[in-house]
């Protein structure tokens, strides 16, 4: 199937089976490898991207379901003012370790802060618990979200 999808502000044509998850469309067909594969079954959040501003697990989102929705990946999140703030806070707190989960974390945090300007710790738990960080950067992710909220 030929699809015309909006990724990072650009309309792009891609040939893919309808059931192909957005994760693989991004990584294998569009060379956008900032979005990561972690589990493939919506358990870890490594593949999180924004679809019309909402965080989705791209590993279980078929390309055929995206339609005219606008996808934002880590490669363009700096164009989103909230995303840029999140990235700055991440650097300021020095959140990352191996970094592999962090694209997903940054996007999930951007979605959280877009919906909720001053999240409580409970809000952070709720919004971020779908994103596993095997390196255990959770305390810093929490601190960075608070920091971004205050900036």
């Amino acid at each position: 199937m030929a699809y015309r999808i909006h990724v990072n502000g650009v309309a792009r044509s891609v040939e893919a089976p309808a059931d192909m998850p957005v994760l693989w469309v991004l990584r294998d067909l569009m060379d956008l490898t900032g979005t990561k594969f972690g589990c493939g079954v919506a358990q870890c959040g490594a593949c999180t991207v924004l679809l019309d501003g909402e965080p989705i697990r791209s590993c279980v989102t078929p390309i055929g379901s995206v339609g005219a929705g606008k996808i934002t990946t880590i490669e363009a999140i700096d164009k989103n003012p909230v995303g840029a703030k999140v990235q700055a806070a991440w650097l300021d707190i020095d959140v990352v370790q191996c970094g592999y989960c962090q694209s997903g974390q940054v996007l999930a945090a951007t979605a959280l802060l877009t919906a909720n300007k001053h999240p409580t710790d409970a809000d952070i738990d709720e919004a971020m618990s779908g994103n596993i960080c095997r390196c255990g950067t959770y305390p810093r992710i929490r601190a960075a979200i608070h920091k971004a909220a205050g900036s």
Partner: protein
Amino acid sequence: MVATTSPSRRTFLTASLAAGGGLLVGFQVLPKPARAAAAASTAFSPNAFVRIGADGKVTVVLPKTEMGQGVYTAIPMMLAEELEVDLATVTIEIPPGEPGRFGKLGQETGGSTSVRETWEPVRNAGAAARMMLIAAAAQKWGVAVESCSAQAGQVVHGTSGRKAAYGTLVAAAALLPVPAKPQLKDAATYRLIGKPTRRLDASAKVNGSAVYGIDVKMPGLKIATLAASPVPGGKLRAVNEAAALAVPGVRQVVRLPDAVAVVADHTWAAKQGLAAADPQWDDGANANLNQAGIVAELLAASQREGAEAGKQGDVETAMRGAARKVEAVYEQPYLAHATMEPTNCTVHVRADSCEVWLGSQVPDTAKGAAAKAAGLPPEKVTIHNFLMGGGFGRRLEVDMVERAIAIGKSVNGPVKVIWSREEDIQHDLFRPYYVDRIAAGLDPAGQPVAWTHRIAGSSIMARLYPKYYKGVDADAVESAVTTPYRLPNNLVQFVRQESPVTTSWWRGVGPLRSVFVVESFIDELAAAAKADPVAYRLGLAQDDRAKAVLSLAAEKAGWAQPPKPGRSRGVSLLHAWDTYMAQVMEIEIDPDGLPVVRRVTVALDCGQVINPDGVRAQVEGGVIFGISGALHGEITFANGRVEQSNFHDYRVLRMSEAPQIETHIIQSTAAPGGMGEPPTAGAGPALANAVFAATGVRVRKLPIAKALKVKA
């Protein structure tokens, strides 16, 4: 003064002009012929830590690999410190895997050795380069070397104030003799070492540009995914190749004796193709391998006399004379690594050469393994190494390289082999299942007068280094033979008991297991003596650094005051990897009975700290990793198969379960200790001891959630 190296020394420096006209300096320990070859070379030689271009650009060639632990920052800090350059101007290069590339210093990155092993050679490499640049400037200006100094990438002449940028000096410096004993800076003058420094790899990791092994791209790249026999030792019996090839995008099905791979244009087609291939297996001899059987064998093994790993005094007499005896058996399960980046390896096998792309903790070992698998001489193999999405010991193994090459041999062109998460977990090389049988004889005051500790499990050392294995797994018994405590009359034994399950290193390695047992058991002894767990440990601890971290952790955690209602505390102390660490863990028990860690107070003395913020990050991440393992981690076998498959049944901590963690670092100028593993090793026992304080239940069989019968 600059002195020349004596040719008889095994440790020496080489300097040469790099291909781009830069100065290249590195410490090496090479046999004489290799040294002669290196010295004769004026082209870019990979045997080096630093390269300085004629444009002044400083490139640090990273001798250890970055998997999150922060060497990408700590090693350049050490080098920039001695070289007197601004850290922000340094470029970092991840070199290919190559035995001998850094002389005696291997590229192997494990055992919390990254800083410990590079501390001397990397600073020496930086200092030698600095001295040669200074000497070159002094020669050019006709002034005494002593009147010149280096700062911020230039040499400065003291009295005249003349300056020369490093780039303008490299050609002259490369012709100078290399200092045999580089003059290292006085610690009091450090600008970088010991100062909190932001990670150099952070930007790339928050904007998606960091490249991991799984991200490599090249023209003509195909993607493969695989299924290996679910039972160890099983064989591939049948594959529906036609169905696999009918999936659009599937190019090829590769059959191996014990696995099948489907090669496709993209990952999705490969995955669909593999499902369609519906592989059938001959389970073989291990079809009935079951957890209960594996554990029964280990328990039986723990009843046998083992090989002596450590002995002091007369244990039998002391045990007989003891006022009372306390005994316990501890069990710790198989664990998967579950690195966030699933196992993967990209290869291009040609008739006469082979290239490999992956993130490896052992890029040098990978080269030999790849050569063997490809049937090529090592010099025909190139290992391109990348950032790792977690290592934790998983990437100390090269099974993925061997597997990818076995597949790649049948593929015309480059192929990236990606393990699904399920394959990654089920075909991991697991932390061994261990049974520890431990006993102590106490005097009337409750102090240990006799101590026996027998460890039964598979031996990783025997599998990897059979030549050196003499009945005791030196890693497994670490932190059992030497503990922080005065234990007169003690005996530690190791009993090797293998099963068909292959086992390997897991973050914390031997001490992870030893410290869990020793620190849980010391807590049992404190309870038997009706003593406070911190006071009891302080009374037994035998060195001041151990006592200092324990006292500090207790003080900062407010140990002297009772915890808030609903909270309970546990403590652990360890000395391993040249680091001392105490943890106080404060927990609550949630309505389901699950312990939730709220606050962790860690005090440590790891000798000279390179990057205090990096140390804190390792504490936070390591503690959380340790809690995940102790609370939930368990791999089990039924009918020859691993029962867990993904993060829903191999649970790791999530944001909502993550505690607040405070790190208190004791300043020290002792040689650096390791920091990648101590926090993980100390976390499990602190948690189990807190669970005992909260519930009265002594968890002797991990994982804790299962021992407490918490509903999954």
